[in-house]
């Protein structure tokens, strides 16, 4: 990857709202160059989406998250892809990952209450043909999300002047 592309991606990963003018000021590229690069990166699907990390708890919205580990039975000819596709279509399911180790697949589910999540898992996930067993872990607190530390202590102050 060339230096300019890396620069743009790093800047955008940190702040999706930054405008091309500002990226230009930070990189020494012209605004047009920045816009062209971003357009290319979007078309090439290197930039997949612009998202916001929200602290819903602070906003007073008490979403409940759970991580559910699944053991699955693979049907003949249909691999993990088939079960993944069934899982990711549920809007409650926020992420789907294939794992190595004791379990095969891990999904993250979001709901409005523990009860709702528990019923969703019992009724919609555990009953799928390929699913052999589930283990549900409710998330009690999120300390870090997508590389962002959510409750980071304030930085130690530096002196106002130093050599």
């Amino acid at each position, binding site marked *: 990857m060339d230096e300019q592309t*890396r*620069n743009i991606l*790093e*800047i955008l990963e940190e702040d999706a709202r930054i405008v091309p003018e500002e990226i230009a*000021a*930070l*990189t*020494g590229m012209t605004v047009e160059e920045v816009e062209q690069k971003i357009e290319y990166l979007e078309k090439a699907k290197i930039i997949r989406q612009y998202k916001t990390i929200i602290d819903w708890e602070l906003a007073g919205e008490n979403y409940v998250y759970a991580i559910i580990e699944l053991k699955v039975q693979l049907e003949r000819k249909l691999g993990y892809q088939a079960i993944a596709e069934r899982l990711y279509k549920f809007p409650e399911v926020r992420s789907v990952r294939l794992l190595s180790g004791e379990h095969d697949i891990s999904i993250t589910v979001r709901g409005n209450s523990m009860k709702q999540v528990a019923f969703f898992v019992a009724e919609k996930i555990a009953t799928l043909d390929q699913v052999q067993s589930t283990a549900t872990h409710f998330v009690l607190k999120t300390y870090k999300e997508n590389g962002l530390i959510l409750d980071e202590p304030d*930085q*130690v102050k*530096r*002196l*106002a*002047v*130093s*050599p």
Partner: protein
Amino acid sequence: MRTQCNPSRFISNSMQKVPPSGIRKFFDMASGSEDVISLGVGEPDYVTPWHIREACIHSIEHGETSYTSNYGLIELREEISRSYVKRHGVYYNPEEEILVTTGVSEALDLAIRAITNPGDEIIVVQPSYVAYVPSVIFAGGVPVTIGARGENDFKITAAEIEAAITDKTKAVIINYPNNPTGATIGKDELEAIADVIVEHDIMMISDDVYERLTYEGTHTCFSALEGMRDRTIMLNGFSKAYSMTGFRMAYAMAAPEIINSMMLIHQYSMLCAPITAQVGAIEALRNGEEEVGKMVREYDRRRKLIVGGLNDLGLDCFNPRGAFYAFPSIKSTGLTADEFAERLLHEQNVVTIPGDIFGDTGAGHLRCAYAASREDIKEALDRISTFVDGL
């Protein structure tokens, strides 16, 4: 009755020759006020990367709390040696040519003391770090300051150095990338300086503490130039590149005779650098590249932001290719740097440092450190803009 004591009578003559630090005044003025945005800080705004802190914690947990060799941990000296071979192709023997010190500050003091006899002249290229001139005076030497000029992007020329050399000259101190200007210097220019150093049979003290913060072009290590290895005392450290100012970790590299003399002073004054910080430095050299890369890329963005911003305000700023300082000229405003910096602080709460504190040729310039968050840099530029418009 015993007579009263006048303590100042006991202060040594060399102490009396040292002027008070010009930075101090701004420190005092800034420390009272709230809502201050500081471009006056010559240190990174990052906390030391976690893996380095973690290595230090682990080391303390395992009871590593003793003195080390006077030279520093051999593992650390080996890593330092490797890093110079890798980056510059110059080899220093970790056994006898590398000394671990508490900051480049100590290394600088030791280097000057190790080679200076009373009356020896040491040429200090300015604008420069504020410690050089006092360190020469403390060692009983005579600082001879010469100025790198703005017209030449604050690079000193071989001819300018040569003109200052007398038969008392012992060494020259240079610092690239430079504090306070951000200037770097090219290989050809250093080759020409090397010729002068050899011709007059003197030494070079090269303070390379900002080496890793080079954004354009590549840094040339003076001791890697042909024939320069044994004529150079190379100073480098961890404060800036690894964001480890509080660890006080640095090193000097030179011929065994020089390092041995420096070690003798170190042995009887400092004894050795703190072991915990040395462990952190080993970790930094072994596994720190990725973090250095990230920080350097971000400084580079801020550099473009601030230099572009200052130029847009009509404060003519040459392109600093290293360190984390912008050094704009404020001559167009008709104010002196001191007036500008003082009024900017009082009227807009922005701290900058007047350039003449670092030497005469810095007059009419401000040192603006951009080791600050982008938000702070933008806010500072806005406030400077308001200030300049109101003049």
